[in-house]
């Protein structure tokens, strides 16, 4: 671990129980001392120069672990455990992809298009604000600015129409996908039943 701290590597502690070794507490607590431009970490009688890329991950398989507040306060908690509802949605997406690949692809394309439209709208807004800021005193006399405003409005209206069309298509895909929900429900139910056996 000392080498990883100094060379900026990542350490993963797997399958932790509730008791965490006290020797790693200074690392978790980020008990750094600033010296010059670098951070120094004191573990036992050693002083380590902490590399900025050093990362520490703690992983546990405990379903409901209880760690002391000092650990909880210093760590970002990410819960990867599966819930029945989450698994059901995951299975539904899988079943629809395998059963109706065309619809799954259309939905994926719609999501990409929506993202693209949002970026376009944001760029238009920024462009407009920038033009207005630099327009000078008499905005109405600035023909180029007025033309750009009209063009922006036209593009924005086009995007709104496309977004509305996309929403309708997406809704119809969701309605169709929901028909497969019973099979996803059954899958999720069996998964959790098997885990409880």
């Amino acid at each position, binding site marked *: 671990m000392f080498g990883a701290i100094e060379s900026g590597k990542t350490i993963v502690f797997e399958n932790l129980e509730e008791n965490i070794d006290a020797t790693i507490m200074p690392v978790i607590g980020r008990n750094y001392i600033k010296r010059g431009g670098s951070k120094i970490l004191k573990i036992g009688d050693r002083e380590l120069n902490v590399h900025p890329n050093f990362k520490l991950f703690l992983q546990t*398989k405990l379903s409901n672990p209880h760690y002391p507040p000092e650990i909880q306060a210093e760590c970002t908690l990410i819960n990867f455990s*599966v819930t029945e509802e989450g*698994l059901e949605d995951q*299975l539904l997406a*899988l*079943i629809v992809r*395998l*059963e*109706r*690949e*065309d*619809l799954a692809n259309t939905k994926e394309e719609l999501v990409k298009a929506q993202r693209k439209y949002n970026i376009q709208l944001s760029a238009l807004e920024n462009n407009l604000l920038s033009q207005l800021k630099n327009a000078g005193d008499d905005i109405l006399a600035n023909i180029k600015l007025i033309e750009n405003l009209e063009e922006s409005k036209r593009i924005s209206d086009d995007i709104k129409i496309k977004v509305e069309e996309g929403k309708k298509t997406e809704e119809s895909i969701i309605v169709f996908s929901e*028909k*497969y929900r*019973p*099979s996803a429900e*059954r*899958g999720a139910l*069996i*998964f959790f039943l*098997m*885990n409880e056996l």
Partner: protein
Amino acid sequence: MFSLRSFIFVIKRAISKVQAQWDQEHNDENEDPNDENKELSDEDLDKRISLLVESITETSWD
């Protein structure tokens, strides 16, 4: 703990079983074998979903 990855594999197998069985049963009716993603009638879709539920149950317990 039963692995989620293995379970997803089981689900995929259950679906492919239904697809193979369905294709075999409807092969004669389907004139164009390349006509994938063909829309099913409401009745056929209900039947196919019931088969999927059944296949997921059986394949998982196996």
